[in-house]
């Protein structure tokens, strides 16, 4: 997994609550057996017409946000299915961080496994970021996981909370399985008495 330390990029505002993982990556694209290549299908049914031509009004098809790497979202982002194809698609498209007032549990967890940083801010703070991102071309945010802060170039600075252990793993790009296998003796002992 790629570590996440500090990241600067254009923020795209996706103004919908309850964005589910079916919308992030529709089921017809879950049949691949690889982890890669899902970015082209991200938000497919919002991004493309039935004939595959782009839907101009969708935020990621607007030239200003085409190269966005930070996604601004609303409440309960990533609800629904546990499909890890959702963070795979976001990552493959280029997103490294998602900012929302709340995330669905499984999706939130899946992000950390893939080097994406999901950041919870208050509704008021997210509203402010939406306003700024919608009001200005090429609105950039810098996300510093070391310092736990979201900043823009106009003096905005929002500190954020993140679980210390998740932060540590993300900063270092650590592999969970490797960590767990350090407890092999304890696992074996548990298995012996279960």
């Amino acid at each position, binding site marked *: 997994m790629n570590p996440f330390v500090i990241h600067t990029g254009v923020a795209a505002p996706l*103004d*919908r*609550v*309850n964005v*589910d993982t*079916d*919308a992030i990556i*529709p*089921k*017809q694209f*879950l*049949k*691949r*057996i*690889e*982890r890669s290549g899902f970015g082209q299908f991200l938000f497919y*049914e919002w991004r493309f017409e*039935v004939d595959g031509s782009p839907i101009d009004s969708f935020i990621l098809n607007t030239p200003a946000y085409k190269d966005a790497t930070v996604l601004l979202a*609303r*409440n*309960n982002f990533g*609800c*629904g*299915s*546990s*499909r*890890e194809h959702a*963070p795979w698609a976001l990552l493959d498209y280029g997103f490294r961080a998602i900012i929302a007032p*709340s*995330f*669905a*549990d*499984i999706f939130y*967890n*899946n992000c950390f*496994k*893939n080097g994406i940083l999901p950041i919870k801010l208050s509704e008021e703070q997210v509203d402010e970021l939406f306003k700024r991102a919608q009001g200005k071309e090429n609105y950039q945010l810098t996300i510093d996981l070391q310092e736990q802060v979201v900043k823009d170039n106009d003096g905005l600075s929002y500190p954020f909370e993140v*679980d*210390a*252990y998740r932060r540590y793993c993300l900063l270092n790009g650590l592999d*969970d*399985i490797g*960590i*767990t*296998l350090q*407890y092999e003796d*304890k*696992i074996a002992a*548990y*298995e012996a008495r*279960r």
Partner: protein
Amino acid sequence: MKPRTMFEKIWQNHVIHEEAGKPSLLYIDLHLVHEVTSPQAFEGLRLAGRKVRRPDLTFATMDHNVPTADRFNVKDPISRQQMETLTQNCEEFGITLADLNSPDQGIVHVIGPELGLTTPGKTIVCGDSHTSTHGAFGALAFGIGTSEVEHVLATQCLQQSKPKTMEVRVNGDLPFGVSAKDLILAIIAKYGTDFATGYVIEYTGEAIRKLTMEERMTVCNMTIEGGARAGLIAPDQTTFDYLKGKRYAPQGEDFLAAVEAWKQLVTDEGATYDTVVEIEASEIAPQVTWGTSPGMGTDITKTVPAPESFETANQRKAAQDALAYMGLTPGTPMSEIKIDRVFIGSCTNGRIEDLRKAAEVAKGRKVAPSVHAMVVPGSQLVKQIAEQEGLHLIFQEAGFDWRESGCSMCLAMNPDILSEGERCASTSNRNFEGRQGRGGRTHLVSPEMAAAAAIAGHFVDVREWKRENASKEVFQ
């Protein structure tokens, strides 16, 4: 000892390692695997040169891609490849697989319980959010992503931060004609799709105790739609009776010993939850969703709500978007919404009792000419029992399409899919945009409500039909 909730007992029974500031390492008793969320996990094992630690605690089936008409003829080459990949992975790593040739094949959350793999007190995971279903037995069961599937395959453990606990107490009795599906839909409509994020719910109260195992599974299944990590229901005689004699459940003397142990799992008198929610069962009516999120639902007796009636700007916008997608006008009575398709099945409502309830409504009636209605048993075993009972004949005589087992149109990964603009009464769990097909419009309902809608061609209050059926029986 301090009184503990059932969740705390199961959690503590499975903690292998705990350390301040880190997630706990939990042992997993049962890992269910299906074809969609596992290929990348097995590939990860191969790349790292790892084995499956406990193939004996792992059980696989294929369900999401399976065609329900001509099941051995998988026309989509990518679907076929995904299923073949699972077969190869199970062979390579020594995992039992219920494939299309197996009488055990079915939706992973239907076969776990019916094979007796699911038992009280276990920790159960699967790369599927509806793993919460198994909580109906008093097992701590939740969905995981593919990275975690790989983690469990390799280590039989999972790193988990401890969730909070919530009691959802359902007082009183469900009224006549109101189902477990209506109960869980009403809970989500009232409290929202994220009211339980970060929590494990334990359902308690009179109404819950009176539910059958299958009804409890429906409630726990859709617990994820309220955002919870898992749902739990304390095991009792209903649970033990269900499990007795199931193939993988303990047998004979072992079963009796297991029952004694299972009885110890229930929440202690005086134990407290982080949050408590109370519901009056008597206030619940049959539910129909009108929007594109499971929380956007209402009573069959009500009307499509106006976006202005919602509290916050975000909710108003969501309602507006949803009504535009659904092609609905505020103020329309729910019972006047006409439908084109009916889907009875899924891990929410594809069990034998669900089919019996739908058949009871369908018996002696005919599906409206404008409607295509489909019944998809949750597993081969459900199908077999239904056919022994003659349910398939009731459905077929009424004009329903009787299918083979699988996930089918719940998520439409197989050929069962809605066309643009088609409106469907569905017993599944999600009414998301495009879930059942691009542009398809899903209304979530119970099996009884779905069967009645198939016949009327629009939603109806199934309580009236049930009363009619009941009075006919009295006079016969």
